[in-house]
């Protein structure tokens, strides 16, 4: 009794302390941890704010210089760096003849990412349905390891593989077949690069890169389909295919749309793999196999050269490209996560879907 009272006086144990803990009161140590960890938890938000504001501030001179040319011109030329004559637009000067049109990169980004998305969604959903409906539980774990493997392969390794293995393979065996489609849709007509470098190869590699995002979300959602509804459907005499169509697909549809938006965001912003495979040309693709550039790949590719611009405008122009890329990928991410928030908080993966 004496022991308890003495310790209770020292605020370390005993009834007083239980009472305080029950009230949810925080000790000084608790408050310190609360503040320190609270600051740590705001770092991502602060980082996001800084990223957005720095991009805006850096892009402003280029936005003024280019005006609507940014969206309407497919010519990106940082100007004649050896000329002493400057080109001036809206009061801002850049090297002679500098034009910062983003249309090529907008088209390139749109095509590569949309082709990847169109392929990745059915492959992911189909693969996951197969995995959950027909593959024995025992094998499900090992097989889903392949998804993690796919998610873990670095961008540069995908690029290396696309350049040295997949590209040559496609250009010899697949593109000659696919080009027959050119009779109906001219966009599919050749020619293509002998090593397969170009938009379609880049899109196919992007497909592999975003499958883990869509597939891992779908897998989580498929697991949550109410057993009662599934069994009810089977009890009504539906085949497994009908059960999937009537019960599973409607249940996971919203989640698939959300994860597709996330996957799209990742495909838009993917840099190194695309840079290695797409063939780096500053013109819109001539056909589906054609070489071109995306917003992300041109930033990585051109920043070095832009740094040699004595007026500093080329870096600003690159900032404007980056700002556009940032805004598009933020929008796809926000949309995807907001949609998913309405159905469930946990299903969407962070980052690349490991």
């Amino acid at each position, binding site marked *: 009794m004496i022991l308890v009272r003495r310790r209770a006086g020292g605020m370390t144990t005993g009834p007083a302390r239980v009472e305080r*803990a029950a009230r949810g009161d925080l000790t000084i140590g608790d408050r310190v941890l*609360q503040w320190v960890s609270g600051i740590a*938890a705001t770092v*991502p*938000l602060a*980082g996001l704010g800084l990223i957005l504001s720095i991009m805006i501030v850096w892009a402003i001179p280029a936005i003024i210089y280019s005006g609507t040319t940014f969206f309407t011109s497919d010519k990106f030329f940082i100007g004649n760096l050896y000329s002493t004559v400057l080109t001036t637009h809206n009061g801002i000067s850049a090297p002679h003849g500098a034009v910062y049109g983003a249309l090529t990169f907008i088209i390139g980004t749109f095509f590569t990412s949309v082709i990847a998305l169109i392929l990745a969604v059915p492959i992911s959903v189909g693969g996951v349905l197969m995995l959950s409906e027909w593959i024995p539980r025992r094998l499900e774990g090992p097989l889903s390891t392949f998804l993690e493997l796919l998610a873990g392969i670095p961008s540069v390794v995908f690029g290396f593989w696309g350049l040295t293995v997949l590209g040559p393979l496609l250009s010899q065996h697949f593109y000659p077949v696919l080009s027959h489609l050119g009779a109906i849709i001219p966009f599919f007509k050749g020619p293509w690069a002998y090593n397969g470098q170009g938009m379609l190869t880049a899109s196919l590699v992007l497909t592999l890169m975003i499958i883990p995002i869509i597939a891992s979300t779908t897998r989580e959602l498929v697991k949550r389909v109410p057993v009662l509804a599934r069994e009810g459907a089977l009890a009504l005499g539906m085949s497994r295919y009908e059960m999937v169509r009537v019960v599973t697909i409607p249940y996971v549809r919203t989640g698939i749309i959300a994860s597709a938006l996330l996957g799209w965001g990742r495909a838009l912003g993917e840099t190194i793999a695309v840079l290695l495979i797409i063939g780096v040309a500053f013109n819109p693709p001539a056909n589906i196999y054609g070489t071109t550039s995306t917003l992300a790949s041109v930033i990585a590719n051109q920043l070095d050269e832009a740094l040699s611009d004595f007026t500093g405008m080329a870096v600003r122009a690159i900032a404007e490209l980056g700002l556009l890329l*940032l805004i598009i990928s933020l929008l796809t991410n926000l949309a995807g996560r907001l949609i998913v928030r309405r159905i469930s908080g946990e299903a969407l993966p*962070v980052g690349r879907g490991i």
Partner: protein
Amino acid sequence: MRGGIFWVLCGLALLIIIAPAVAVVVSVLVKAAPALRWSLLTNTTQDVQNPGLQNAILGTLAFAIGVLVIAGPVGILGGVYLAEFAPRRLGGTLRFFSEVLAGVPSIVVGFVIYVALVIGLKWGYSIMSGVVALSLIILPYIIKTTEVSFTQVPRSLREAAAALGLSKITTIRKVLLPPALPGIVSGLVIAIAISTGETAPLLFTANFSNFNPTPQLFQNPVGYLTYVTYYYIGLPSPHDQALASAAAGITILMILVLIFGGRLITARSRRMVARLDV
């Protein structure tokens, strides 16, 4: 009949997921195998006669350590706040923006760090600039895995701690942390795997160096493995391309070890936490 066709297509889809995953890893390792030799570990890319990867491997390891030191504590603390302290609304908002940060293209992060730190604060091309860029990229991941690890601790343990009158900080340290630790560690390991594979955010923050990294953290470019793959594969000489293959092989081996190591820890910890529930 339509069901049959549907399931054949689904099987095909599963094959399209599995086959490339195996094909990428196997073909990269097969390409790398002939280029692997001991001198890769003893020579740097500077060596003209017999270039190696020592500087790149050491640089990649230095980045892993740097990211662990910077993003590790911040991410774990952030996760603890979201799991244990945050009010519902505020927690939801912070969590949401942390996840959105993970969706920012890595090249944009690299560009921002370039203008803000490399030239803005005059850090120059350096390991510090690179570490900050990588940290921003993997921070959301560490926060998420830490938060999940804490919230997965069985409720009975929290109730027992409250009944004992433990303060929050003691509850976290002595009761919640031990069962949450494996999950946190595996999150860190996989975060390191992700940062090890990054190239785009480092191009304009760390740049590249043919020399081994030094303790000089600022104004000092550093080499790393992914750059060797990215740059040397574009060079005409077969020797340079062999070096690119070797770097790709070593990168993917490192990442496989990290990812499967992380998974192993996760699997173990799940079993352990399940046993704790009373």
